[in-house]
């Protein structure tokens, strides 16, 4: 049971890294995610059902997500509409497309077919099944995290980060911001779809409604992560996103499992998630104000020290 929460959280964390890229790094409020998550699940499921092999299935899911991201970024770039609207457009269109991918059905099961999650116990026979699933998922998440960390240390990755912080600076450095947005959004939604592809295999079915409310859940996980520690290093940022995702899933599990003591039903979880995000925002705001004040104090102290040092030098001369 405990392992289940971790597996759930880890799969979810890949999606949250995708949301992190659009929402935090690119500063692009992207709702494509609600659609592309289900797209990933649908593509992976149909690929597996049609016997393409597991690696190919995940690769196809990844690419399908990337295409969704490119569509959103292109709508935003070409039609000059806000990212939010571009995302909603893609998400809405994806709902129909996802049902098409699923062969006109809203739900396709993955029963009696080999998936990654039926394979893990064979790959790790020395441990019990839940642990095998956990180790397998952990491995995948670790690889994804490492690749993302490396990517955001490359020149391209750093410039994507700079774009989210200051678009004018990117233009001044001779880079086309539109192209960077396309790349960033493609990567973001590719990860989201990859996560969807994994979840479909874990839970054993793909559903056209799988992505509903994903953005908000992702934001909640990001914000929980940000409570853990403060850093501007990408490796620590992705780590705290993963931890945040697991904690979020654990909280939701508690809500589902023990919620009935206070009359909570599973349908209340979305409300809880929303409240969680709002509370996080409030706390973050007050903390931000405090840290700005702190930074100001530090700067004053540094200035004073420097002035004193230069006065001493002046005195010596």
């Amino acid at each position, binding site marked *: 049971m405990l392992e289940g929460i971790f597996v759930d959280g880890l799969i979810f964390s890949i999606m949250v890294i995708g949301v992190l890229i659009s929402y935090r790094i690119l500063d692009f409020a992207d709702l494509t995610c609600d659609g592309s998550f289900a797209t990933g699940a649908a593509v992976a499921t149909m690929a597996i059902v049609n016997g393409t092999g597991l690696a190919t299935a995940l690769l196809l899911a990844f690419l399908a997500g990337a295409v969704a991201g490119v569509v959103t970024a292109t709508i935003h770039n070409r039609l000059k509409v806000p990212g939010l609207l571009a995302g909603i457009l893609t998400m809405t269109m994806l709902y129909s497309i996802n049902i098409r991918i699923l062969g006109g059905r809203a739900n396709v099961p993955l029963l009696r077919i080999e998936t990654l999650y039926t394979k893990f116990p064979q790959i790790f026979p020395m441990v019990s099944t839940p642990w095998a699933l956990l180790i397998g998922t952990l491995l995948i998440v670790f690889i994804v995290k490492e690749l993302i960390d490396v990517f955001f*240390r490359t*020149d391209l990755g750093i410039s994507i980060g700079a774009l989210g912080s200051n678009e*004018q600076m990117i233009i001044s450095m001779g*880079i*086309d911001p539109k192209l960077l947005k396309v790349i960033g959004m493609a990567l973001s939604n590719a990860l989201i779809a990859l996560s969807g592809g994994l979840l479909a295999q874990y839970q054993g079915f793909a559903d056209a409604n799988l992505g509903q409310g994903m953005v908000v859940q992702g934001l909640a996980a990001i914000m929980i992560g940000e409570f853990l520690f403060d850093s501007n290093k990408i490796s620590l940022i992705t780590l705290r996103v993963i931890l945040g995702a697991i904690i979020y899933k654990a909280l939701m599990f508690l809500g589902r499992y023990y919620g009935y003591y206070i009359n909570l039903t599973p349908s209340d979880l979305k409300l809880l998630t929303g409240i969680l995000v709002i509370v996080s925002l409030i706390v973050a705001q007050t903390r931000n104000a405090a840290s700005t004040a702190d930074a100001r104090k530090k700067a004053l102290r540094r200035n004073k020290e420097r002035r004193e040092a230069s006065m001493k030098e002046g005195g010596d001369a």
Partner: protein
Amino acid sequence: MLRIEQLSKVFYPGTVNEKTAIEYIDLDVRDGDFITVVGSNGSGKSTLFNLISGTYPVTGGKIILNGKDVTNSPEYRRAFTIGRIFQDPTKGTAAKMSIEDNMITAFKKGMKGLGISLNASKRGYFKEELKQLSMGLEDRLKDNVGLLSGGQRQALTLLMTVLSRPQMLLLDEHTAALDPRNAQIVMDLTTEFISRYRLTTLMVTHNMQHAIDFGNRLIMMDGGKIILDLSQEEKHSLTVPKLVKMFKSIKNQEYVSDEDLLTP
């Protein structure tokens, strides 16, 4: 270096808010020129800069950069040749990223690849470069730029702009938002970099003394036109009162004619 022919810019054409910001300007900026640009608010200085760097599309006329017509080329393309620094110190750097990440982005103009350029030797180089700012930034490579003061950020912006090796600098009142001491530091660095890298420069300033002291040419703008273009020799004997007098005498001619219209 830069030639502007019959350049004009009209905002909101065809509406009640129609406003002509630039009226048929001709300007020839020679290689190595350091031109100071003065003029009151709304005279069109910033619009001129926005047109040169490509932030706004032009209404009419041509902009020729290094012999190439760049009138319709996007801002990021022109940025290969033109480095621009704004009045607002937050515009030139990414606040949420460390100093070294900012510098590596500025290090080479143009689209970046998947290589990792930020290594020990680059860090050493950045430290050396930061030392000339004498602001102690060389010890804070990993600090977020958002933690720096306005003066430090503007000095860093200047350094980053120069690191990317533009041929031309557009300085849009880049010291106006700083306190006098930091403004002095940034201005000293500016002149040092301009002469070291022989940058062709246009500098907007509201400081008349700066306009006279710096550069080899002075342009005064008013009502979207260049009303005064002084060469090095003419600038030589110039003082602030003389410059103000010149400005007033040109303006007065207009007022006189306005009054003519009003009196029967």
